[in-house]
C-alpha cells in the first residue's frame, strides 16, 4: 500500500473531509440523526485516503481526531494552546481571587469525579455499550465519602489538621470536605461556591458539550458515546501521565495497567 500522503486528493474530497470535521465540532450532532453525517463517517472508516485527509485538516486546525464511529460520530479534541481549547480561566471565571487556586482544583476535580462516577469501574470505560448515569447527589456524595475515608486515615494523629501557615500545602480532600455542600440562597437553588454548585455546573457544561444527556426530572444525566471516548482516549490518559510525572503512582489492578499507553 502506498503512503496516502503522496496521492493527490480531489478538491471535492477535501471539502467533504472538512465537512466531517465541521460535524464533529457540533457537540450535539449525531450520525444517527443526519444521513449526510453518517455517510461521511462510513466513508472515513472505509477510505484510508479520506481518513487521512480528515486527520490532516483537523491537525491543521489544532485538533486531534479521537475516534470516529457510527454511535459517537467524529470526536475531536483540541491540542494544547489551540484556539479550540477550553480554558479553566474562562470556565471558572466567577471565583474569589484569594481562593483562585483551590477553586480551580475543585472545578477540575468535579469533572474528574463526574467521569469517575459515570464509569465506576475500568470495565465500564472500556465497554463501548456501557451507558453511565450521574447526578449531583451521587457525584458530591461519592467525593465526600472518599474525602471522609481519607480524613479517617489521619484522625487521631498529629496530621489530623492541616498546617495553618501554608494553605497551598493543604490536601485537596480537606478543601472539598470543608466547603459546604449546599447553602440556602434567596432563589432556593444551591449556592455556586458550594460543592454541589460546582458539580452541578460541571454536569450542565458537559450536557451543553453533548457529553451528557439529561434523563428524567431529578437532575440525572446519562453518558453519551462521545463522552466515553473523550474520557477513555484522552482525559484519563493525560491525567494518568500527569500523576505519573508527579510520582504519584496510582494503585492499580494488574489488568487495568496493562493497556495504558506510556506505562
Amino acid at each position, binding site marked *: 500500500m502506498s503512503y496516502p500522503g503522496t496521492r493527490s486528493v480531489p478538491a471535492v474530497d477535501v471539502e467533504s473531509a472538512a465537512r466531517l470535521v465541521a460535524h464533529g465540532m457540533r457537540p450535539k450532532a449525531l450520525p444517527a440523526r443526519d444521513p449526510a453525517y453518517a455517510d461521511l463517517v462510513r466513508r472515513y472508516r472505509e477510505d484510508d485516503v479520506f481518513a487521512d485527509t480528515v486527520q490532516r485538516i483537523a491537525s491543521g486546525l489544532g485538533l486531534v481526531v479521537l475516534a470516529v464511529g457510527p454511535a459517537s460520530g467524529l470526536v475531536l479534541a483540541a491540542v494544547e494552546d489551540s484556539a479550540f481549547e477550553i480554558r479553566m480561566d474562562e470556565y471558572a471565571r466567577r471565583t474569589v481571587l484569594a481562593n483562585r487556586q483551590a477553586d480551580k482544583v475543585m472545578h477540575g476535580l468535579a469533572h474528574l469525579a463526574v467521569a469517575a462516577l459515570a464509569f465506576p469501574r475500568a470495565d465500564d470505560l472500556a465497554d463501548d455499550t456501557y451507558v453511565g448515569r450521574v447526578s449531583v447527589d451521587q457525584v458530591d456524595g461519592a467525593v465526600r465519602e472518599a474525602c471522609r475515608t481519607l480524613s479517617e486515615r489521619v484522625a487521631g494523629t498529629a496530621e489530623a489538621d492541616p498546617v495553618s501557615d501554608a494553605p497551598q500545602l493543604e490536601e485537596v480532600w480537606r478543601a472539598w470536605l470543608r466547603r459546604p455542600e449546599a447553602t440556602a440562597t434567596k432563589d432556593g437553588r444551591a449556592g455556586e461556591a458550594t460543592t454541589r454548585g460546582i458539580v452541578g455546573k460541571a454536569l450542565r457544561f458537559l450536557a451543553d458539550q453533548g457529553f451528557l444527556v439529561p434523563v428524567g426530572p431529578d437532575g440525572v444525566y446519562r453518558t453519551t458515546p462521545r463522552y466515553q471516548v473523550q474520557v477513555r482516549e484522552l482525559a484519563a490518559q493525560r491525567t*494518568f501521565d500527569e500523576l505519573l510525572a508527579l510520582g504519584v503512582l496510582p494503585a492499580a489492578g494488574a489488568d487495568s495497567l496493562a493497556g495504558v499507553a506510556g506505562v
Partner: protein
Amino acid sequence: MQTGVPRAGDEGLARRLKALACTAPLHDLDARKTRLDWVDAERYQMAEIGLQAIDEVTLAMDFDHGAAQPEVVRRLLPFIGTQAPDAPAGEHERVGRWVIENLINVGSLDRGFAVEYGSLAADGRYVRRRFDFKLLVELAGPDGEVYLRASDEAINVLVGALDTDVESAQVAAEVKLENLISRGLLGDARLAAEQARYRTVQYAEALRQKLDATRRDVRSVDWLAAVPALLDEALTHIEGRYRAETAILDHIATARDEATEPSRRRQAAELVGVVRDCIQRHTQLQTRLQEAGAVFRAEQDRQQFAGRPRRAAIDVFGQLLRPCLTLHVATAVEPTAAFFRAGTGVRVPSVPSLGGLVETLLAPPSDRDPLGEPVPVPELAPAAPDPFGADRWGRVDAALPAAGRAVRLSALLAEARGADPDLPRLVALRVLHAVGSAVTTARTQGDAELLLAVDDGTVLRDAEYGGADLLVGTAEVL
C-alpha cells in the same frame, strides 16, 4: 509531612484546645450582639439561644434529613420570646435567624470556623495547625431543599461531653441516670436521659453515612471488617440500652406514682416521656441495623454484575480521583486542569461576520410608533347582579343569632318568611354555608366571630326546604 508520634500530653492539650474552640462561636454571639443596630440586643442571651438552636436541630435529625431553617426559627420563637416578652414577634424571629446564620457562619466561603493551635513535631519543632470545624451544616435534602444538621462538634458542645468515645459516654450517662433516680435527683436524671438520646442520634448518623456510601459504591465501604464491627457494636449497644431503659422506665413510673410532691411528680412524668422517646429511637436504629445487611447484598448484586472486560482501561475513581484528593492543592492544579482541558471537548469560537456586523450597524433604525402597540379592547362581561341585594343581606345578618345564642333553622325560616318571601332562600344558603365552618380559616382571616351550624338529628319540617333542622349559633373566634 511526617511528624511521627507526638509527645504524651501534647495530644491531650490539642484535644482540649479543640474542644474549647467549639464553644467560641457561642461566646462570640454575645460578644458581637452589641454591634447589631436593629435590636436592643442586651436583653437577649444569644449563647443560650444558640445552644437551644443546636438542640432543636439535633432532635430534628433522623435518617433522612434534618430541619429546614425556617422551621428551626419557628421552634425557637417561644424560647426567645421569654427573654424579651414585650418585643415584637418580628424581632424575635430576626434574632433567631441571626443566631442560626452565625452558627452556620454565613458569609464565610466555607461556612465554618477555624482555630489555630500548635503541636510539637517529632523533632521538637512547634508546628502551627488549623482546626476546621462547623456547628450547623446545611445539606441538600432529597427534594432539593436545604436542611440543617448539627455537626459532631456541635453535638459534643451541646452535651458537654467533649471529645469522648460514644460508647463509653453513653454507658456513663446511663450509670449516672440510675444513680440520680435512686437518689431522687430527677431534674438531673432528665438531662442525662436526653444526653443518652443525642448519643443514639450519633450512632444513627454514622450508620446512615455508611449505607449511603454503599449505595454509591460497595467497594468504598469495608464490609468485611469495619461495618460488621459497627453493626455488632451498635446492636449490642441497643440491646444493653433497651434493657437498661426499660428498667429505668419501670423505676421512674414507680417513682412518679409514689411521689407526693407535685413538682417531683411532674418531673418524673416528663422523664418517662424522654425515656420512651429514647426507646423509640433505639428501636428505629435497630430496624435500620437489621436492614443494613440486605442493603449491602442488594447493592453488591447490582454493582458486581458485569460482562467480560473488552479492553483494559483506567479506573478513573481509584487511579485518578482518589490520588488527586491526596495531593496538596498547589500540586493538584496540573492534573485536574489536564483532565479538565482534555475532558471537556472543544470550544467552537464564535466569529462575528464583519460583513454582517457592518450591515447591522448601517441599517437605518426601524420606525417605532411613538404611541406603542395598540391597546387591545378588553371584552367586558356584565356582572351577575346580586339576587338578594344589600338590604336583604342586612336583614339576614340581623336575624342570625347573636354571639353565645343558638337558634333552630326552622325558627329562622319562619321569621324570614314573615318579612319577605325571598328571604328564606338567603337564610337557608347562609346556614348551609355555616355547616362545618373551619375555625382555622376564620382565624387566619382575622374574623372576630364565626357562624356555625350543627346537625343534632332533628328533622326539618318545612314547606319549601327539607333535611336536618340545624342548630345555628355564632361563636367568637379567640
